[in-house]
């Protein structure tokens, strides 16, 4: 390529790509959440029982005042791969909840919860939730960790395919809960709203929900906003993907099987084809498998159109 052409091409590239880079820089103004080294990331990831139990405590004492978790049955807290509460603990816990029901004569009643019940919602319906929270209904938390995330632009999304980075949701939630700050000068935050660097648009309706020392942990985990945020984000990931541990465990078995099986298939295929591969002709040097049989002649008289030659 001549020098002039190279220069022209480079100039063209800069003209066309330059503005795109500027657009990307604008998008990046909202910082990407820091990547937390989650126990459940990667091919052998498992939930940390202690972390999920602490996260559940935060959900129960703080989040549940405004957020529903309606898709989860209370019994799932005892399911394998999750927070690992015993069935007795879950039964006791369920009985603390008041569940709306009807009695034998059809009168509306409130009864003690059972493990099979779903977590009761803090508000009877969406308009009530909206009215009680400054015009914005707090979202249901059942799938929240999979319904949130942040954009991974080129080339990062390509690398994610190989590194199995799938934790945009919990990373975003953990960052958001620690992302409250005073608005920078000139940034106008409406009354009843808060500044949060990680939210697109940066104005959030939820007041800062967590404060240091607010929740008393039973273990010796630090009682800081950072720790609380991580724990509740991990709990929400479990709530959104309760079978993640089983999925990754079975995945390893499936991958191992498939790789061995594929290797064996390759050897089988190579052996069968060795007869055809013999460069001197069509005879097999090994004399095994069906590949050593003389290869039937092409049955058609016409080179391109094959006749259906199966009339007896």
């Amino acid at each position, binding site marked *: 390529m001549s020098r002039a052409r190279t220069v022209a091409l480079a100039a063209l590239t800069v003209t*066309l*790509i330059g*503005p*795109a880079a500027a*657009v990307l820089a604008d998008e990046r103004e909202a910082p990407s959440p820091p990547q937390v080294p989650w126990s459940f990331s990667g091919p052998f990831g498992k939930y940390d029982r202690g972390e999920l139990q602490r996260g559940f405590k935060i959900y129960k004492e703080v989040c549940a005042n405004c957020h529903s978790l309606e*898709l*989860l*049955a209370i019994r*799932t807290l005892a399911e394998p791969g999750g927070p690992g509460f015993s069935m007795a603990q879950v039964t006791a816990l369920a009985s603390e909840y008041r569940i709306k029901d009807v009695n034998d004569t059809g009168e509306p009643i409130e009864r003690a919860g059972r493990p099979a019940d779903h977590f009761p919602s803090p508000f009877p319906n969406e308009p009530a939730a909206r009215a009680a929270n400054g015009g914005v209904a707090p979202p*249901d938390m*059942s*799938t*929240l960790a*999979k*319904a*949130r*995330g942040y954009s991974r632009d*080129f080339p990062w999304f390509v690398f*994610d*395919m190989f590194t*199995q980075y*799938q934790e*945009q949701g919990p990373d975003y939630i953990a960052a958001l809960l620690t992302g409250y700050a005073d608005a920078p000068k000139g940034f106008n935050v409406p009354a009843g709203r808060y500044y949060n660097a990680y939210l*697109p648009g940066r104005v959030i309706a939820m007041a800062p929900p967590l404060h240091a020392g607010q929740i008393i942990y039973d273990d010796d985990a630090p009682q800081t906003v950072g720790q609380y945020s991580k724990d509740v984000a991990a709990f929400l990931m479990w709530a*959104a993907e309760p*079978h993640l541990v*089983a*999925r*990754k465990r*079975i*995945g390893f078995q*499936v*991958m191992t099987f*498939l790789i061995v099986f*594929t290797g064996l*298939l*390759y050897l*089988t*295929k190579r052996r*069968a*084809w060795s007869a*055809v*591969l013999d*460069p001197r002709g069509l005879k097999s040097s090994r004399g095994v498998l*069906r*590949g050593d049989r003389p*290869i*039937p*002649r*092409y*049955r058609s008289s016409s*080179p*391109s*159109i*094959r006749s*259906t*030659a*199966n*009339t*007896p």
Partner: protein
Amino acid sequence: MLQTVTKPTADGYQPRHPALRWLEKRLPIGRFIHAEFVVYPTPRNLNYWWTFGAILSLMLGIQIVTGIILAMHYTPHTDLAFKSIEGIMRDVNYGWLLRYLHSNGASMFFIAVYVHMFRSLYYGSYKEPRELVWILGVIVYLLMVVTGFLGYVLVWGQMSFWAATVITNLFSAIPIVGDAIVTWLWGGYAVGNPTLNRFFSLHYLLPFMIVGVSVLHVWALHVVGQNNPAGIELQEGKDTVPFTPYATLKDIFGTACFLILYAWFVFYIPNYLGHPDNYIPANPSVTPAEIVPEWYYLPFYAILRSIPNKLLGVIALFGSIAVLAFLPWLDTSRVKSARYRPLFAKFFWLFVVACIGLGWLGTKPPDGIYLIWSRVLTFYYLAFFLLVLPVLGLFETTRPLPKSISEPVLASDPKWL
């Protein structure tokens, strides 16, 4: 008449087992399988790009089987659809596996079909005498596009709902009757419960139509025989190997490799190809910040948005798929394989890059530099079919073709077989 079948058929099929003999007298299915999938001659130089037919058959089977089981647990109602899918994910035994196999299976199906189509394009497999094989394939692809879209809507998340709204609204661009057609498609005056119900019904129906057209596709293929990397027709017996065990084993091995990729997505990154917003239940009163289709529609979405006029955009969108049906006659070159068409090969790879580029642009807002690039690549996409292929065949200098496919095969290093 019945006695004749005790004699071997012309290609040597003679059932030995009494049960098979019994069957053969009444329904000669064994003879058919023997003729089409055992002794059927396949070109000996097929490479691994030719295993995608088998991969696609398997994916269609997996989608139908997982889909039928998922339908046993799914409720096509606007209030319950999202919840029933979460019920599958949480409470149905291995429901998460079925659901991720099905959702990622759709993506794998499209990966395989795009490889299959690009292979066909590169080696000129659509040319005489395989025009009908190609056209039936385009029909299968069209059915796949519709089926995939309908299935995505069934999740009834935010992206499902808004994708349904945007795509059905495309028909409103049709002059005079457009709005009436949209109302008819919706079964009401907005995307609602009737829409979800009919989408579920059609999502169950269309895969069986895909099976039907695929059978015709393979039938037509077996009449004319497969193309091959050299792109020249078979000339002598030693050009071919019998389907079994050669093509069979190669197909099974290729399929197993593909399954590793599939399993990687299902078990480790099952939501990689999805949009987070589709884990938010559909809400007609909240429009998402961005509405993007599934990845396999992104190039067409970019084409749609690159044209400022709605009607022309819709015409370009449908035209970009419809043009495929005319490909056998748009390509004027008599040489099939890009191996012997160096100039075509360059345009081909540029076309692949344009398709990937359009896919990336489909995720970007249609303004500024993105819009300019969308227009450039849309122009190239259409020009490749309407301008490059017709003209190139008349002027390009092709490399000399080998006399038969045995010639390059036997002379060259055989390891690529």
